[in-house]
């Protein structure tokens, strides 16, 4: 369990302080995958560094299993983390990187071989980490996070640089870890990724929490759908549907109907003898919902004014 209370981080800048994390409160519960979603620069990595005691909060606090990270007698056995920066010496082999980590927390060295196998790096364990691809580096970082068999796992953008097979693997791993009752906290700037991985969603934008709800709830709230109608007698259609108490609006030459599925709308209009040219269920994508939600808080805008997300072109 991770608990943040009024957690704030300001970085001094040339023109005044910059608030990276703005007094946020949240709880990351065990037994489920909590997605930490936000555009580039939202404050995800800063929050995670504060969880790990690497950055000191300007004010507020964050605890892991009820105490400050630094108060843990063997932190790697309590919380495992993959950080956004590589945090690995390129001249050291994967196995040696895990060996010093194990030594630092009194973790049996047998765990080194186990996690190497678990992440699929055993064949390259003796190679220098500097030769690794981005994806292999991520796998090594994930191996390091699992080394102490910790009940809490924090992964900052773990799917960055992974191929589709690797992304599926991370998804499956996160699920298994949560099913074992662990606290799993994973950041991403990709809604589509979170939709497939997370049970619970924590959306952050410009340092503030914008949503804290189950994935299901988020979909119901934000990925709204409507039925699009095109008809020669649009006004007649609108009269019929409004008369039934449905939420109807006209946009250009179409009607948008909420609160009923396409079949229901079609039957209503058919019964009233309204001729239809088009009847379509339109579902707003989660990605759209995320962009709408965070539009005000995205730091970098393209010239068109549309919010641009890191990696959104993929």
């Amino acid at each position, binding site marked *: 369990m991770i608990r943040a209370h009024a957690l704030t981080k300001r970085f001094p800048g040339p023109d005044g302080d910059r608030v990276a994390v703005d007094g946020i409160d949240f709880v990351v519960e*065990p037994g489920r995958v909590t997605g930490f979603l936000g555009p580039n620069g939202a404050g995800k990595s800063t929050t995670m*560094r504060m969880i*790990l*005691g*690497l*950055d*000191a909060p300007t004010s507020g606090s964050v605890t892991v*299993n009820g105490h400050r*990270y*630094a108060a*843990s*007698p*063997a*932190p*790697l*056995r*309590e919380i495992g*983390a993959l*950080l956004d*920066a*590589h*945090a*690995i*010496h*390129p*001249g*050291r*082999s994967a196995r*040696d990187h895990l*060996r*010093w*980590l194990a*030594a*630092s*927390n*009194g973790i049996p060295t047998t765990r080194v071989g*186990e*996690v190497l*196998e*678990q*992440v*699929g*790096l055993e064949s390259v364990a003796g190679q220098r980490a500097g030769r690794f691809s981005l994806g292999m580096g991520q*796998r090594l970082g994930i191996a*390091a996070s*699992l080394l102490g*068999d*910790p*009940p809490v796992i924090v992964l900052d953008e773990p799917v960055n640089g992974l191929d589709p*097979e*690797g992304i599926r*693997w991370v998804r*499956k*791993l996160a699920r*298994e*870890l949560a099913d*074992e*009752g*662990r606290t799993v906290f994973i950041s991403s700037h990709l809604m589509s990724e979170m939709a497939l991985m997370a049970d619970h969603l924590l959306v952050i934008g410009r340092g503030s929490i914008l949503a804290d709800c189950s994935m299901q709830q988020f979909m119901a709230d934000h990925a709204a759908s409507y039925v699009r109608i095109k008809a020669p007698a649009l006004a007649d259609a609108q009269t019929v549907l409004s008369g039934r108490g449905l939420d109807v609006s006209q946009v250009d030459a179409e009607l948008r109907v909420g609160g009923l599925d396409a079949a229901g709308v079609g039957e209503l209009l058919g019964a009233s003898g309204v001729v239809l040219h088009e009847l379509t269920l339109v579902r707003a994508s989660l990605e759209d919902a995320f962009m709408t939600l965070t539009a005000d808080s995205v730091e970098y805008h393209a010239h068109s004014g549309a919010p641009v997300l890191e990696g959104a072109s993929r």
Partner: protein
Amino acid sequence: MSTTTLSAVTGQPPARDLTDGPTPGFGRALQAEWVKLRTVRSTGWTLLATFVLGAGLTILMCGLNADWLASPKADESPGSFITWGMMIAQICAVVLGALVVTSEYSTGMIRSTFAAVPTRGRVVAAKALLVSSVLFVVGTVTALVGYAGGNWFLDRAGIGMPLEGDVLRAMFGSGAFLAGIGLFTVAVGFILRHTAGTISAVLALMLILGNMVNLVPGTLGDWLVKLMPGNAGSAISTPVSFNPDVLGPWTGFGVFGLETAALLVLAWVLVRRRDA
């Protein structure tokens, strides 16, 4: 790449009581730093360079100068030549001390380190202890090998020195000087967090500034010469100093030790206070 199921390796229930295992203390931090030190190539190379330059240049300089030192024209003592190579070997000690710290900052590894050992003072202490121990051993061995080779030439010219008194002190003193330089650089590395910056700052202070203060006139200049860390610390590494104005070997080393300790305290304070 294969994907194995997790349950095979994480059989234990999560959120176990952590007090059942051994609680990692300073010994664990030291062990971790020892693994780190042994598993990068730069350590071996810098130590090899320390040995080859330190012992090799001593032997070479003694060989080239033995006859001149034995002649009445000589205005230097053979005691100044018997650890000559250590003046160059100290550069390698600076490089080692810097890399042990600053390579972690340049690669981002320092975050893994402080996440694994959140009591950051332990990291500083472990690095300091390891670097100084390794350099003490390598420095002493280097000086002894340099003595053995160099003294062979001096012997042939009739000016050989027995391994006792100031000569023996200079052997261990060479190890102590390199250890001190390593510590000094570790401290500067934690303060500056940058490889090139740390190496140039320490070398400039030890080698260039240490000589430039000669230009400062009067007693102020005399004291600056005596107190500059490179000048104060190096006297212990040679039976007879080239520079007659420096402090005695033990006084000088004491001054150097205090300067190093002050820097280590500053490093410790900054490391604990700064974000990683």
